[in-house]
């Protein structure tokens, strides 16, 4: 069993790199996913992840498979979509989910069009599905940098972000930090989606955020343990997915997301906070 778990990482450098990439993604994306879920923005995260595509595609058109160009393009596109969708929702009758869907669909279609007109099908597959087994040094450094920035920013802005999610009106009444918390969170979200896009592709980047967050929510009612469990689940699921991918010759991105999905289903069945198995057991209660 030890050999099954450890040998792939001991023997192959690309597996160690993939594991390091997953660790970085878990530390950054999972806590962002928890706040995304608690703000009822899970689907918004998915939409923004898709919206990164045209930016990455334009970066690719200008500079080929260049990390800075594709990352910069993805960042700019993600931020524009997040801000435009928010602005449209505030200035028109459209709700934020509708405006976000509209903007991201335009963005996604534009991205696929740009890639199809300019490159081969292989490039499109790389952008859509990523390749965690081919992380080079600069990409790994980028993922580690984004994880570091995210953890530091969350530590600094934690109190404001919690208030912004739980009771935004209260935060606005006591402090001017509300717009900074909102905007800062969007920037962190886009940064982590860009990190996820390099490893898992634009289609599945958000999986590393939402699946661990949703699984952890089934185990905890307190935010602190919820964040810690989400990170642990992201790391467990992603390294498990890497191992499955290695041993059974599966595509790595989908294997990681499916492993995270298995943890989610397991949590649905076994969790103490509304899990299905618990509902079948005899119920007892306290006297007061």
């Amino acid at each position: 069993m030890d050999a099954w778990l450890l040998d792939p990482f001991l023997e192959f450098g690309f597996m160690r790199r993939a594991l390091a990439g997953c660790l970085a993604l878990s530390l950054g994306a999972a806590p962002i996913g928890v706040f995304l879920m608690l703000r009822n923005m899970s689907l918004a995260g998915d939409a923004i992840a898709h919206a990164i595509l045209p930016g990455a595609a334009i970066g690719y058109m200008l500079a080929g498979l260049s990390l800075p160009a594709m990352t910069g393009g993805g960042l700019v596109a993600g931020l524009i979509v997040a801000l435009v969708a928010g602005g449209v929702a505030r200035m028109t009758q459209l709700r934020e989910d509708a405006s976000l869907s509209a903007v991201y669909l335009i963005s996604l279609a534009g991205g696929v069009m740009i890639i199809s007109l300019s490159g081969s099908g292989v490039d499109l597959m790389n952008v859509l599905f990523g390749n965690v087994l081919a992380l080079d040094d600069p990409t790994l450094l980028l993922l580690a940098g984004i994880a570091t920035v995210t953890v530091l920013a969350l530590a600094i802005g934690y109190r404001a972000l919690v208030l912004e999610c739980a009771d935004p009106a209260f935060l606005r009444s006591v402090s001017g930090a509300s717009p900074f918390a909102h905007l800062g969170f969007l920037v962190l979200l886009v940064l982590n989606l860009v990190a996820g896009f390099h490893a898992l592709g634009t289609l599945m980047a958000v999986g590393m955020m939402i699946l661990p967050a949703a699984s952890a929510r089934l185990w905890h009612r307190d935010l602190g343990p919820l964040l810690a469990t989400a990170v642990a689940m992201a790391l467990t699921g992603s390294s498990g997915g890497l191992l499955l991918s290695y041993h059974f010759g599966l595509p790595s991105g989908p294997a990681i997301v499916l492993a995270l999905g298995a943890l989610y289903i397991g949590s649905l069945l076994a969790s103490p906070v509304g899990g299905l198995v618990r509902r079948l057991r005899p119920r007892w209660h306290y006297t007061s």
Partner: protein
Amino acid sequence: MNAPALVFENLTLGYDRHPVVHHLKGDVAEGALLALVGPNGAGKSTLLKSIAGELRPIEGSIRRCGDVAGRFAYLPQQSAIDAGFPITVADLVAMGLWRDVGLFGGIGRTGRRRLAEALGQVGLEGFERRPIGTLSGGQLQRARFARLLLQDAPLILLDEPYTAVDAQTVGDMAMLVQRWHAEGRTVIAVLHDLEHVRQHYPEALLLARETIARGASREVLSIANLERARHLAAAFDEHAPVCHRHAEAA
């Protein structure tokens, strides 16, 4: 007569250019205990929201003066809070210490003592570790009042504070309001229970987009005034002409 805590200068508030509060003038004295009353749609919550800085006036202004200039505590209607958010009662109430601890400060021994006292005063001892999602409506409202206690603000704004809470909770919260008044704080509350206003609030402002009456509660809440307010608040015209009263006011 105390110095004014708030001054409304030709204040017009609204949505989509339709006024909800129309050319309001007047002031609220420091230490006042004022009830904002009026039918649904009269502009009471909108006025409170604007005092709290949540809504910019279409025209005119609100001046916060003296002690209340930068310090107020605002209790919006209950729907503003996400009751499913995974925090405990202690976390929710401790938000009231924001002015002392800010973004980074620790709560400390004094803060913990004040937190315990505030929970005791609203009857929530022993609820510290309970997730807010497990509280009843009345218990959640008690926790929000405990947070107001910790905010220790000279101006307190309450928007329908007794909605969907039982008589015992109303009584307990009303006692806290009376205590704030006795301490010289300015309290403005949006209320629908007119008998409660007559008994507990010395002053009332009857609003129906504009001031219908202002003064001692028992005089303001006359049948004639209430009837007039009901008719004025119900009047709404999608194709109303542009208002030019700002020119008259100037």
